[in-house]
Protein backbone atom coordinates (compact mmCIF):
# COMPACT_ATOMS: atom_id res chain seq x y z
CA UNK A 1 0.00 0.00 0.00
CA UNK A 2 1.31 3.35 -0.93
CA UNK A 3 1.47 5.43 2.22
CA UNK A 4 4.32 7.76 1.37
CA UNK A 5 3.73 11.45 1.41
CA UNK A 6 5.92 13.80 -0.52
CA UNK A 7 6.05 17.46 -1.12
CA UNK A 8 5.82 18.29 -4.79
CA UNK A 9 9.11 18.33 -6.60
CA UNK A 10 10.35 21.71 -7.75
CA UNK A 11 9.27 20.95 -11.30
CA UNK A 12 5.71 21.39 -10.14
CA UNK A 13 6.16 24.89 -8.83
CA UNK A 14 6.08 27.89 -11.12
CA UNK A 15 9.59 28.87 -12.14
CA UNK A 16 9.17 32.40 -10.81
CA UNK A 17 8.41 30.94 -7.38
CA UNK A 18 11.60 28.88 -7.58
CA UNK A 19 13.59 31.98 -8.53
CA UNK A 20 12.18 33.89 -5.58
CA UNK A 21 12.90 30.93 -3.28
CA UNK A 22 16.47 30.70 -4.51
CA UNK A 23 17.13 34.36 -3.72
CA UNK A 24 15.41 33.98 -0.35
CA UNK A 25 17.65 31.00 0.43
CA UNK A 26 20.70 33.07 -0.43
CA UNK A 27 19.55 35.78 1.96
CA UNK A 28 18.75 33.31 4.75
CA UNK A 29 22.09 31.50 4.53
CA UNK A 30 24.00 34.76 4.28
CA UNK A 31 25.29 34.39 0.70
CA UNK A 32 23.35 37.52 -0.18
CA UNK A 33 23.99 39.92 2.69
CA UNK A 34 21.68 42.84 3.36
CA UNK A 35 22.56 45.80 1.18
CA UNK A 36 24.23 43.68 -1.52
CA UNK A 37 23.12 43.57 -5.11
CA UNK A 38 21.28 40.48 -6.35
CA UNK A 39 21.77 39.05 -9.88
CA UNK A 40 19.96 40.94 -12.64
CA UNK A 41 17.02 39.31 -14.38
CA UNK A 42 19.20 38.96 -17.48
CA UNK A 43 21.83 37.08 -15.47
CA UNK A 44 19.19 34.90 -13.80
CA UNK A 45 17.61 34.11 -17.16
CA UNK A 46 20.90 33.16 -18.81
CA UNK A 47 22.11 31.15 -15.80
CA UNK A 48 18.92 29.15 -15.36
CA UNK A 49 18.03 29.13 -19.06
CA UNK A 50 14.63 30.61 -18.46
CA UNK A 51 12.60 33.40 -19.96
CA UNK A 52 13.75 36.83 -18.66
CA UNK A 53 10.13 37.81 -17.97
CA UNK A 54 9.82 34.79 -15.69
CA UNK A 55 12.99 35.74 -13.83
CA UNK A 56 11.69 39.31 -13.49
CA UNK A 57 8.43 38.02 -12.07
CA UNK A 58 10.30 36.11 -9.33
CA UNK A 59 12.41 39.16 -8.46
CA UNK A 60 9.37 41.45 -8.48
CA UNK A 61 7.59 39.19 -5.98
CA UNK A 62 10.43 39.88 -3.56
CA UNK A 63 10.32 43.60 -4.30
CA UNK A 64 6.58 43.67 -3.59
CA UNK A 65 7.35 41.78 -0.40
CA UNK A 66 9.96 44.33 0.65
CA UNK A 67 12.74 41.72 0.69
CA UNK A 68 14.44 43.48 -2.23
CA UNK A 69 14.39 47.08 -3.32
CA UNK A 70 15.19 48.70 -6.61
CA UNK A 71 17.79 51.39 -7.13
CA UNK A 72 16.91 53.07 -10.35
CA UNK A 73 19.44 52.42 -13.09
CA UNK A 74 21.62 50.22 -10.89
CA UNK A 75 19.68 47.11 -9.96
CA UNK A 76 18.05 45.19 -7.13
CA UNK A 77 19.41 45.10 -3.59
CA UNK A 78 18.66 43.13 -0.44
CA UNK A 79 16.68 45.30 1.98
CA UNK A 80 17.64 45.98 5.58
CA UNK A 81 15.98 43.51 7.93
CA UNK A 82 15.13 41.11 5.10
CA UNK A 83 16.94 38.17 6.63
CA UNK A 84 15.24 38.45 10.00
CA UNK A 85 11.82 38.71 8.34
CA UNK A 86 12.48 35.64 6.19
CA UNK A 87 13.70 33.71 9.22
CA UNK A 88 10.55 34.64 11.16
CA UNK A 89 8.40 33.44 8.30
CA UNK A 90 10.26 30.14 8.03
CA UNK A 91 10.11 29.54 11.76
CA UNK A 92 6.34 30.03 11.56
CA UNK A 93 6.12 27.36 8.86
CA UNK A 94 8.54 24.97 10.54
CA UNK A 95 5.92 23.16 12.60
CA UNK A 96 3.57 22.43 9.70
CA UNK A 97 6.27 21.66 7.13
CA UNK A 98 8.71 19.61 9.19
CA UNK A 99 7.41 18.65 12.63
CA UNK A 100 3.93 17.50 11.64
CA UNK A 101 5.11 15.17 8.81
CA UNK A 102 7.71 13.76 11.21
CA UNK A 103 5.07 13.05 13.84
CA UNK A 104 2.70 11.59 11.24
CA UNK A 105 5.34 9.21 9.92
CA UNK A 106 6.38 8.20 13.42
CA UNK A 107 2.77 7.39 14.28
CA UNK A 108 2.44 5.17 11.19
CA UNK A 109 5.53 3.27 12.22
CA UNK A 110 4.32 2.85 15.80
CA UNK A 111 7.01 5.11 17.25
CA UNK A 112 5.52 6.90 20.22
CA UNK A 113 6.19 10.52 21.12
CA UNK A 114 8.63 9.68 23.93
CA UNK A 115 10.66 7.50 21.58
CA UNK A 116 10.62 10.26 19.00
CA UNK A 117 11.86 12.80 21.54
CA UNK A 118 14.70 10.47 22.48
CA UNK A 119 15.63 10.12 18.82
CA UNK A 120 15.64 13.91 18.38
CA UNK A 121 17.80 14.38 21.45
CA UNK A 122 20.20 11.76 20.12
CA UNK A 123 20.55 13.23 16.64
CA UNK A 124 20.83 16.70 18.20
CA UNK A 125 23.77 15.60 20.31
CA UNK A 126 25.37 13.80 17.34
CA UNK A 127 25.78 16.97 15.30
Amino acid at each position, binding site marked *: MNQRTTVLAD*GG*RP*IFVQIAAEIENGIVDGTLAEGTQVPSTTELAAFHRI*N*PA*TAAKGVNELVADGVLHKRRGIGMFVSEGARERLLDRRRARFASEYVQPLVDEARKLGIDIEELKTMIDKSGSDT
Partner: protein
Amino acid sequence: MTAVVEVRGVTKAYGHQRVLDDVSLTLHENTIHGLLGRNGAGKTTLMRVVTGQVFAHGEIRVFGTTPAENAGVLERVCFVSESQPYPDHYRVRHVLAAAAVLFPAWDAAYAESLVADFDLPPERAVRKLSRGMRSALGIVVGLAARAPLTLFDEPYLGLDATARQLFYDRLLADYAENPRTILLSTHLIDEVGDLLEHVSVIDAGRIVLDDDADELRTRAVTVSGPSAAVASFTEGRAVLHLDSMTMLSRAVVADGRRADDDEVARRLGLELESVSLQDLVVRTTDHRRKGALR
Protein backbone atom coordinates in the same frame (compact mmCIF):
# COMPACT_ATOMS: atom_id res chain seq x y z
CA MET B 1 0.43 44.69 -23.56
CA THR B 2 0.44 45.49 -27.25
CA ALA B 3 -0.63 42.74 -29.58
CA VAL B 4 1.86 42.21 -32.41
CA VAL B 5 -0.14 39.42 -34.00
CA GLU B 6 -3.89 38.98 -33.79
CA VAL B 7 -5.52 35.99 -35.42
CA ARG B 8 -9.30 35.76 -35.07
CA GLY B 9 -11.45 32.90 -36.26
CA VAL B 10 -9.05 31.77 -38.96
CA THR B 11 -9.96 28.70 -40.98
CA LYS B 12 -7.91 27.15 -43.75
CA ALA B 13 -8.99 24.12 -45.71
CA TYR B 14 -7.32 22.15 -48.46
CA GLY B 15 -10.21 20.43 -50.19
CA HIS B 16 -12.29 18.88 -47.44
CA GLN B 17 -9.49 18.84 -44.92
CA ARG B 18 -9.48 21.66 -42.41
CA VAL B 19 -5.88 22.39 -41.55
CA LEU B 20 -6.82 25.35 -39.37
CA ASP B 21 -10.23 25.32 -37.74
CA ASP B 22 -11.47 28.58 -36.21
CA VAL B 23 -8.06 29.47 -34.79
CA SER B 24 -7.65 32.54 -32.62
CA LEU B 25 -4.26 33.54 -31.27
CA THR B 26 -2.65 36.69 -29.90
CA LEU B 27 1.09 37.30 -29.73
CA HIS B 28 2.01 40.06 -27.29
CA GLU B 29 4.90 42.40 -27.89
CA ASN B 30 8.28 41.24 -26.62
CA THR B 31 7.36 37.76 -25.50
CA ILE B 32 8.69 34.34 -26.44
CA HIS B 33 5.63 32.41 -27.45
CA GLY B 34 5.68 28.64 -27.97
CA LEU B 35 3.52 26.97 -30.60
CA LEU B 36 3.35 23.32 -29.64
CA GLY B 37 1.62 20.41 -31.25
CA ARG B 38 2.08 17.15 -33.03
CA ASN B 39 3.30 16.82 -36.58
CA GLY B 40 0.52 17.79 -38.95
CA ALA B 41 -1.38 19.70 -36.27
CA GLY B 42 -1.26 22.93 -38.28
CA LYS B 43 1.77 24.71 -36.78
CA THR B 44 3.49 25.48 -40.08
CA THR B 45 0.26 26.48 -41.82
CA LEU B 46 -0.55 28.89 -39.01
CA MET B 47 2.90 30.44 -39.28
CA ARG B 48 2.54 30.77 -43.02
CA VAL B 49 -0.82 32.47 -42.54
CA VAL B 50 0.69 34.90 -40.03
CA THR B 51 3.51 35.75 -42.43
CA GLY B 52 1.12 36.31 -45.33
CA GLN B 53 2.36 33.37 -47.37
CA VAL B 54 -0.94 31.55 -47.30
CA PHE B 55 -4.41 33.03 -47.52
CA ALA B 56 -7.06 31.88 -45.09
CA HIS B 57 -10.55 32.86 -44.02
CA GLY B 58 -10.74 35.01 -40.93
CA GLU B 59 -9.04 38.05 -39.52
CA ILE B 60 -5.25 38.29 -39.46
CA ARG B 61 -3.51 41.39 -38.15
CA VAL B 62 0.25 41.78 -37.86
CA PHE B 63 1.45 45.08 -36.40
CA GLY B 64 -2.18 46.17 -36.69
CA THR B 65 -2.59 45.55 -40.40
CA THR B 66 -2.80 42.79 -42.96
CA PRO B 67 0.48 40.96 -43.62
CA ALA B 68 -0.15 39.70 -47.16
CA GLU B 69 1.74 41.60 -49.86
CA ASN B 70 2.50 44.31 -47.34
CA ALA B 71 6.16 45.36 -47.47
CA GLY B 72 5.80 47.62 -44.43
CA VAL B 73 4.85 44.61 -42.33
CA LEU B 74 7.05 41.99 -43.94
CA GLU B 75 10.32 43.88 -43.46
CA ARG B 76 9.63 43.68 -39.74
CA VAL B 77 9.00 39.93 -39.91
CA CYS B 78 11.55 37.12 -40.15
CA PHE B 79 10.22 33.62 -40.75
CA VAL B 80 12.77 30.85 -40.33
CA SER B 81 11.15 27.99 -42.13
CA GLU B 82 12.01 24.34 -41.69
CA SER B 83 12.52 23.98 -45.44
CA GLN B 84 13.74 27.39 -46.52
CA PRO B 85 14.58 27.29 -50.26
CA TYR B 86 17.69 29.17 -51.42
CA PRO B 87 18.87 29.93 -54.95
CA ASP B 88 21.01 27.07 -56.26
CA HIS B 89 24.30 28.93 -56.56
CA TYR B 90 24.09 30.58 -53.12
CA ARG B 91 26.92 30.15 -50.68
CA VAL B 92 26.50 30.74 -46.94
CA ARG B 93 27.91 34.27 -47.25
CA HIS B 94 25.41 35.06 -50.03
CA VAL B 95 22.54 34.16 -47.73
CA LEU B 96 23.93 36.48 -45.07
CA ALA B 97 24.45 39.27 -47.61
CA ALA B 98 20.86 38.90 -48.84
CA ALA B 99 19.57 38.94 -45.27
CA ALA B 100 21.55 42.13 -44.62
CA VAL B 101 19.62 43.78 -47.45
CA LEU B 102 16.22 42.36 -46.46
CA PHE B 103 16.22 43.11 -42.75
CA PRO B 104 16.63 46.74 -41.65
CA ALA B 105 17.88 45.79 -38.18
CA TRP B 106 20.41 43.18 -39.43
CA ASP B 107 23.51 42.97 -37.22
CA ALA B 108 26.40 41.79 -39.42
CA ALA B 109 28.92 41.49 -36.60
CA TYR B 110 26.50 39.38 -34.57
CA ALA B 111 25.85 37.19 -37.64
CA GLU B 112 29.61 36.65 -38.01
CA SER B 113 29.93 35.55 -34.40
CA LEU B 114 26.99 33.15 -34.77
CA VAL B 115 28.48 31.67 -37.96
CA ALA B 116 31.64 30.96 -35.96
CA ASP B 117 29.66 29.57 -33.00
CA PHE B 118 27.84 27.11 -35.23
CA ASP B 119 30.97 26.23 -37.26
CA LEU B 120 29.36 27.26 -40.53
CA PRO B 121 31.71 27.40 -43.55
CA PRO B 122 30.99 30.80 -45.21
CA GLU B 123 32.17 29.66 -48.63
CA ARG B 124 30.23 26.41 -48.73
CA ALA B 125 27.37 26.21 -51.24
CA VAL B 126 24.08 26.07 -49.38
CA ARG B 127 22.94 23.02 -51.33
CA LYS B 128 26.03 21.17 -50.05
CA LEU B 129 25.30 21.91 -46.40
CA SER B 130 24.20 19.08 -44.15
CA ARG B 131 20.67 19.19 -42.74
CA GLY B 132 22.03 20.43 -39.41
CA MET B 133 24.13 23.15 -41.07
CA ARG B 134 21.10 24.36 -43.04
CA SER B 135 19.17 24.58 -39.78
CA ALA B 136 22.06 26.49 -38.19
CA LEU B 137 22.09 28.91 -41.11
CA GLY B 138 18.38 29.55 -40.59
CA ILE B 139 19.02 30.18 -36.92
CA VAL B 140 21.82 32.65 -37.72
CA VAL B 141 19.51 34.56 -40.05
CA GLY B 142 16.63 34.46 -37.58
CA LEU B 143 18.71 35.82 -34.71
CA ALA B 144 20.84 38.38 -36.56
CA ALA B 145 17.82 39.79 -38.41
CA ARG B 146 16.61 41.20 -35.07
CA ALA B 147 13.18 41.39 -36.67
CA PRO B 148 10.48 42.75 -34.33
CA LEU B 149 8.49 39.59 -35.12
CA THR B 150 10.56 36.45 -35.59
CA LEU B 151 9.07 33.03 -36.27
CA PHE B 152 11.11 29.86 -35.90
CA ASP B 153 9.40 26.79 -37.33
CA GLU B 154 11.04 23.70 -35.83
CA PRO B 155 14.43 25.33 -36.42
CA TYR B 156 16.59 22.51 -35.10
CA LEU B 157 16.24 19.63 -37.62
CA GLY B 158 19.52 17.76 -37.84
CA LEU B 159 21.07 19.75 -34.99
CA ASP B 160 22.62 17.76 -32.19
CA ALA B 161 21.84 18.47 -28.54
CA THR B 162 24.90 20.70 -28.15
CA ALA B 163 23.98 22.89 -31.11
CA ARG B 164 20.37 23.09 -29.96
CA GLN B 165 21.50 24.25 -26.53
CA LEU B 166 23.70 26.83 -28.24
CA PHE B 167 20.62 28.07 -30.10
CA TYR B 168 18.57 28.34 -26.90
CA ASP B 169 21.39 30.16 -25.08
CA ARG B 170 21.99 32.63 -27.91
CA LEU B 171 18.26 33.18 -28.31
CA LEU B 172 17.79 33.98 -24.62
CA ALA B 173 20.84 36.23 -24.40
CA ASP B 174 19.94 38.18 -27.53
CA TYR B 175 16.30 38.41 -26.56
CA ALA B 176 17.29 39.88 -23.19
CA GLU B 177 19.44 42.50 -24.94
CA ASN B 178 17.07 43.12 -27.85
CA PRO B 179 13.54 42.27 -26.80
CA ARG B 180 11.25 41.27 -29.63
CA THR B 181 8.30 39.02 -30.31
CA ILE B 182 9.25 35.45 -31.01
CA LEU B 183 7.03 32.57 -32.05
CA LEU B 184 8.79 29.24 -31.75
CA SER B 185 7.13 26.08 -32.99
CA THR B 186 8.52 22.85 -31.61
CA HIS B 187 7.72 19.43 -30.35
CA LEU B 188 10.83 19.31 -28.15
CA ILE B 189 8.74 20.69 -25.33
CA ASP B 190 10.95 19.65 -22.43
CA GLU B 191 13.91 21.39 -24.04
CA VAL B 192 12.29 24.75 -24.63
CA GLY B 193 9.58 24.82 -21.97
CA ASP B 194 11.53 27.08 -19.63
CA LEU B 195 12.30 29.60 -22.37
CA LEU B 196 8.65 30.22 -23.09
CA GLU B 197 6.53 32.89 -21.52
CA HIS B 198 3.35 31.89 -23.25
CA VAL B 199 2.26 28.59 -24.76
CA SER B 200 -0.32 27.76 -27.39
CA VAL B 201 -1.03 24.14 -28.21
CA ILE B 202 -2.59 23.31 -31.54
CA ASP B 203 -4.18 19.97 -32.23
CA ALA B 204 -5.88 18.91 -35.45
CA GLY B 205 -6.12 22.55 -36.52
CA ARG B 206 -7.61 23.82 -33.27
CA ILE B 207 -6.03 25.71 -30.38
CA VAL B 208 -6.59 23.43 -27.39
CA LEU B 209 -4.43 25.16 -24.77
CA ASP B 210 -3.44 28.81 -24.66
CA ASP B 211 -1.96 30.20 -21.48
CA ASP B 212 1.10 31.46 -19.65
CA ALA B 213 3.73 28.75 -19.39
CA ASP B 214 3.89 29.11 -15.62
CA GLU B 215 0.14 28.73 -15.39
CA LEU B 216 0.19 25.54 -17.49
CA ARG B 217 3.07 24.15 -15.49
CA THR B 218 0.99 24.18 -12.35
CA ARG B 219 -2.32 23.30 -13.93
CA ALA B 220 -2.06 19.55 -13.72
CA VAL B 221 -0.99 17.29 -10.90
CA THR B 222 -0.85 13.51 -10.59
CA VAL B 223 -2.22 12.09 -7.38
CA SER B 224 -1.69 8.45 -6.48
CA GLY B 225 -2.37 6.14 -3.59
CA PRO B 226 -5.25 4.09 -2.13
CA SER B 227 -8.22 4.18 -4.52
CA ALA B 228 -10.67 5.44 -1.90
CA ALA B 229 -8.36 8.28 -0.95
CA VAL B 230 -7.74 9.20 -4.60
CA ALA B 231 -11.50 9.23 -5.17
CA SER B 232 -11.93 11.52 -2.20
CA PHE B 233 -9.15 13.86 -3.40
CA THR B 234 -10.48 14.09 -6.95
CA GLU B 235 -14.15 14.48 -6.06
CA GLY B 236 -15.66 17.39 -7.96
CA ARG B 237 -12.42 18.11 -9.84
CA ALA B 238 -11.51 17.85 -13.51
CA VAL B 239 -9.83 14.47 -13.88
CA LEU B 240 -7.93 14.27 -17.15
CA HIS B 241 -7.02 10.66 -16.66
CA LEU B 242 -7.45 7.80 -14.20
CA ASP B 243 -5.50 4.54 -13.88
CA SER B 244 -6.55 1.93 -11.37
CA MET B 245 -5.50 -1.47 -10.15
CA THR B 246 -6.42 -3.40 -7.03
CA MET B 247 -6.83 -0.84 -4.26
CA LEU B 248 -4.48 1.66 -5.92
CA SER B 249 -5.32 4.51 -8.27
CA ARG B 250 -3.53 7.28 -10.03
CA ALA B 251 -5.35 10.31 -11.37
CA VAL B 252 -4.28 13.36 -13.33
CA VAL B 253 -6.17 16.38 -12.04
CA ALA B 254 -6.09 19.27 -14.48
CA ASP B 255 -7.92 22.13 -12.85
CA GLY B 256 -4.99 23.79 -11.22
CA ARG B 257 -3.17 23.39 -7.96
CA ARG B 258 -5.09 24.32 -4.85
CA ALA B 259 -3.45 25.95 -1.88
CA ASP B 260 -4.32 23.07 0.44
CA ASP B 261 -3.48 20.23 -1.99
CA ASP B 262 -0.26 19.29 -0.20
CA GLU B 263 -2.02 19.29 3.14
CA VAL B 264 -5.01 17.28 1.90
CA ALA B 265 -2.76 14.74 0.15
CA ARG B 266 -0.68 14.33 3.27
CA ARG B 267 -3.73 13.77 5.40
CA LEU B 268 -5.12 11.17 2.97
CA GLY B 269 -1.76 9.43 2.58
CA LEU B 270 -1.50 10.29 -1.11
CA GLU B 271 1.47 11.10 -3.25
CA LEU B 272 1.41 14.22 -5.41
CA GLU B 273 3.54 14.62 -8.48
CA SER B 274 3.74 17.51 -10.86
CA VAL B 275 2.85 17.01 -14.51
CA SER B 276 5.42 18.51 -16.83
CA LEU B 277 4.47 20.84 -19.63
CA GLN B 278 5.35 18.07 -22.07
CA ASP B 279 3.14 15.54 -20.29
CA LEU B 280 0.29 18.02 -20.18
CA VAL B 281 0.58 18.62 -23.92
CA VAL B 282 0.80 14.90 -24.66
CA ARG B 283 -2.18 14.31 -22.43
CA THR B 284 -4.20 17.02 -24.12
CA THR B 285 -3.35 16.09 -27.69
CA ASP B 286 -3.40 12.32 -27.47
CA HIS B 287 -6.94 11.17 -28.13
CA ARG B 288 -6.38 7.56 -28.96
CA ARG B 289 -3.76 6.47 -26.53
CA LYS B 290 -5.43 7.59 -23.30
CA GLY B 291 -3.58 6.13 -20.39
CA ALA B 292 -0.13 6.41 -21.90
CA LEU B 293 0.92 9.08 -19.44
CA ARG B 294 2.00 7.93 -16.04
